[in-house]
C-alpha cells in the first residue's frame, strides 16, 4: 500500500458508517500502522448524515482531519455530492449502487459500484452492506490485512455478537471478489 | 460540686459574633449538644454557608468546609460520597437554601443524599442587611420590599418543608421554632433525630428552624421572639412533615 491512506466513509446514520471506519482503523493498528479515526459528531444519531475520516499510515498521523482523501466509500447520494471533489486524482470511489443513483462526475479516479445493500439483503442482514464495501476497499488497496480485519471484528464487536463474525467475513469476501 | 450546665465540647470556647437576640447561637448550641450526645464529633464534617453564619467553622469543633452561596448540599454530597462514614451536616439560611441554592437542596433531597440539613429561616437576608428573602412573609417590609412584600410584584414565600416533603429521597422533614423554651426543646429533639436518620443511613433529613433577626426586623429581642410566634408560625406551621415514626 502507499505510505498513507486517507479514507472517508460517509452515508446515513445507522448504516454502520462510523463502525466501518473504526474496524478499519483497528485493523490498521493491529497491522502496526499509525491510525486515527475521526467521526462527524452532532445531533444526528440515526437517519442524519454521518461520516468519518480514517488515516492509516506508516508514519505518525499529523492532522486527523482530512482535506483530501485517497479513497471515498459512500452509501448515499448526498455523501457523494459532499465528498466527491475531495478525492485525489488517481484515488478511488466505492459506492453502494443500491442507494447512490447518480453517476459520478470524476473521470480521474477509479470507480467501483457495488450494490452492497442489495447483496446484504440477499444475505439476510442489511448491516453487512458496509462490510461488503470495505471488502472492495481492502482488496484494491491492501490498506489492512484480511486476517487483522477479522481480529479487529473480535476486538470491536461485543462478545455476544461474535457469532456473527463468520458471516461478516463472508460479506467482506463477497465485496473483495465483486 | 456537680456540673449541671456546661459548654458542649463540639462548640469551641470563643464568643459568637451574632447580634443580641439572634437565635443562631441557640441553633449552634443545639447542634453541638446533639453531636456530643451522639458521640460523633470525631467523624462529623459540617458545611458552612454564606450569610451571617459563614464563619461558623470558627465555632464548631468538628472538621468544617466553607461553601459558596447555596452550594452547601452539593459540597456536602462530595464530602459524604468520599467518606460515607462521616456524618455530614449543612447549615444554611433562607437566602442560601431557598433562593440561590434551590436547585442544590432539591436535588440533594431527591437523590436521598445521606446528609443532614439544618435550615435556619428568619424570613430575611441578614448579612447583606435586611433584603427580602424567599421566605419573607406577605406584606413584610424589607430593604428590597420597602412597601411590603406584594404578590403581584414579589410573588409568594416558599414553604420549604412542604415542598421537600413531596420528594421520595427526603425521609425526615420537620419544622421547629426558637421562640420559647418549649419549642427550643422540640427543636433539639428534631435535630437529634435528623442526625440519627443519617447515622442509620436512611436518607436525606432536614430540620427547618424558625429564627429571629431582631436587627433587620427592627425589633428588640423579645419583640422578635413574639413576632415569630405571631407572624411566622401561623404561615409556617410547626411539626413533622415526614419520618416521624422512622426507626433510627
Amino acid at each position, binding site marked *: 500500500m502507499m505510505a498513507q491512506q486517507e479514507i472517508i466513509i460517509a452515508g446515513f446514520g445507522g448504516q454502520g458508517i462510523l463502525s466501518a471506519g*473504526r474496524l478499519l*482503523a*483497528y485493523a490498521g*493498528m493491529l497491522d502496526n500502522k*499509525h*491510525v*486515527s*479515526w*475521526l*467521526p462527524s*459528531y*452532532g*445531533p444526528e444519531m440515526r437517519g442524519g448524515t454521518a461520516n468519518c475520516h480514517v488515516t492509516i499510515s506508516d508514519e505518525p*498521523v*499529523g*492532522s*486527523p*482531519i482530512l*482535506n483530501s482523501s485517497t479513497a471515498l466509500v459512500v452509501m448515499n447520494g448526498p455523501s457523494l455530492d459532499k465528498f466527491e471533489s475531495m478525492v485525489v486524482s488517481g484515488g478511488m470511489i466505492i459506492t453502494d449502487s443500491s442507494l447512490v443513483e447518480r453517476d459520478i462526475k470524476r473521470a480521474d479516479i477509479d470507480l467501483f459500484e457495488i450494490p452492497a445493500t442489495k447483496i446484504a439483503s440477499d444475505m439476510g442482514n442489511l448491516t453487512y452492506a458496509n462490510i461488503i464495501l470495505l471488502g472492495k476497499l481492502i482488496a484494491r488497496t491492501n490498506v489492512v490485512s484480511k486476517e487483522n480485519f477479522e481480529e479487529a471484528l473480535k*476486538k470491536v464487536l461485543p462478545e455476544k455478537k461474535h457469532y456473527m463474525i463468520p458471516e461478516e467475513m463472508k460479506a467482506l469476501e463477497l465485496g473483495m471478489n465483486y | 460540686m456537680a456540673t449541671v450546665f456546661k459548654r458542649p465540647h463540639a462548640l469551641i470556647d470563643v464568643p459568637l459574633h451574632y447580634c443580641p437576640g439572634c437565635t443562631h447561637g441557640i441553633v449552634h448550641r443545639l447542634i453541638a449538644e446533639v453531636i456530643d450526645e451522639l458521640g460523633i*464529633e*470525631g*467523624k*462529623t*464534617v459540617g*458545611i*458552612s454557608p454564606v450569610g451571617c453564619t*459563614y*464563619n461558623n*467553622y470558627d465555632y*464548631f*469543633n*468538628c*472538621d*468544617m*468546609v*466553607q*461553601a*459558596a452561596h447555596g*452550594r452547601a448540599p*452539593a*459540597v*456536602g*454530597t*462530595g*464530602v*459524604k*460520597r*468520599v*467518606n460515607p*462514614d*462521616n456524618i455530614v451536616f449543612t447549615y444554611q439560611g433562607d437566602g442560601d437554601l431557598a433562593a440561590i441554592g434551590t*436547585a*442544590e437542596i*432539591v*436535588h440533594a433531597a431527591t*437523590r436521598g443524599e445521606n446528609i443532614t440539613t439544618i435550615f435556619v429561616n428568619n424570613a430575611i437576608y441578614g448579612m447583606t442587611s435586611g433584603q427580602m428573602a424567599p421566605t419573607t412573609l406577605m406584606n413584610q417590609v424589607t430593604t428590597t420590599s420597602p412597601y411590603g412584600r406584594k404578590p403581584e410584584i414579589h410573588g409568594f414565600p416558599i414553604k420549604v418543608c412542604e415542598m421537600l416533603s413531596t420528594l421520595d429521597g427526603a425521609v425526615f422533614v420537620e419544622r421547629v421554632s426558637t421562640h420559647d423554651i418549649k419549642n427550643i426543646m422540640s427543636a433539639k429533639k428534631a435535630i437529634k433525630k435528623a442526625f440519627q436518620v443519617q447515622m442509620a443511613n436512611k436518607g436525606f433529613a432536614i430540620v427547618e428552624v424558625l429564627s429571629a433577626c431582631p436587627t433587620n426586623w427592627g425589633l428588640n429581642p423579645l419583640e422578635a421572639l413574639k413576632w415569630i410566634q405571631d407572624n411566622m408560625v401561623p404561615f409556617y406551621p410547626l411539626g413533622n412533615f415526614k419520618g416521624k415514626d422512622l426507626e433510627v
Partner: protein
Amino acid sequence: MGEKLLMKGNEVIAEAAIRAGCRHYFGYPITPQTEIAHYMAKKMPEVDGTFVQAESEIAAINMVYGAASAGARVLTSSSSPGISLKQEGISYIAGAELPAVVVNIVRCGPGLGGILPAQCDYFQAVKGGGHGDYKMVVLAPCSVQELYEMTVEAFNISDKYRILTMIMGDGILGQMMEAVEFKDKEDIISPDKNWATTGTQMKREHNVVTSIFINPEVLENHNHKLQEKYALITENEIKVETYNCENADIIVAAFGTVARIIKNVIKMAEKEGIKVGLIRPITLWPFPERAFQKYADVPKAFLTVELNAGQMLEDVKLAVNGKKPVHFYGRMGGMLPTQQEILDKIKDILK
C-alpha cells in the same frame, strides 16, 4: 507497556483518571465530552468509585469542591458553556487551595455557540475565568496517547501543589480514536493530605477548608502565598514541544489539534523550500515564554494559528517581546483551517 488499544479521546481521559486513582466523578451532560460521563457511569461501580450526575455544572463543581476537601482525587468534565458555569467553583477551589482536575473539551462560542471544535476558551482558562487573582495549570494535549499521560499527570500536579489542573482539548481530540498504550502501573505522586476534612477522630484540632479571609492582612498574605506557589509551578512545570525550529524561516505557534495540522503544513512547505518551525505550548499556563525567547532571533517572523480570534497570540507577542513580527491566522465557529490556507498565509508573510 500493556496492549495497544484503539480508543476515543474522551474515554481515554476517563480511563486514565481511574488509573490515576480518581474514584469520584461529578458531571453534567454536554456535547462533545459526554462519553467521559458514560465511561465513568459504567466503570466507577466496578472500582468502588462514585459517579454522580449532578443537577447542574454548578452543583458538579461544588461536589468536586466537597470531595477534594475530603482528600479524594476527583474529576469533573464539561465543554465550554458548562465550564462557564463552573467558574464560581473553580475560583473557590483556587482560594481554598484544593487539588482537583477539570476537563474542558472546548466547543465554539460565544453563548451556546456550536458543538464543533474550537480553542476559544484560552483566555478563560489561562487568564482567569472566575474572580480573583488565581491561576490553574492548563494542559493542552494533542493526541489520544497524550490525553492519557497528561490526565495522570494532572492529578499528580494537582496533589503536589494543591491546585486545580485543567485539561483543555477540543471536540476533535475528544471524539477521535487513536492507539493508546497504558502502563501496567501509574506513577502516582500524592503527598499526605493532612489538611483534609475527614473528621478529627478526636485526635487533632479541627481542619477547616475555606476561601474566605475577612481580615485584609490575612487575605493579602494568603494571596502572596498563592502567588509564590504559582511562581514555583512556573519554575518547575512548563512543558513545550519545539520542532524544526533551528534555522526556520518562520516559526508557527499552535497548541492542541492545530499543532498537528501544522506538522502537515511543515511537510508541504518543505517541498517548496520553506522551513517552518513549530513551538507547541503543552502547558498553556504556565506559558513556555523561554522557548519563544530562545528562538526569537531565528525566523523572519512568527505566526500564531488558533481556532479563535487570536488569544494565545497575546502571550506569544509578550514572549517574543517585539523582536520579530507576530502574525495571526485563525478560524472560528467550528471551521478548521486547511493546510493549504496556512501555507498560503506563510508564503504571504515571507513575501
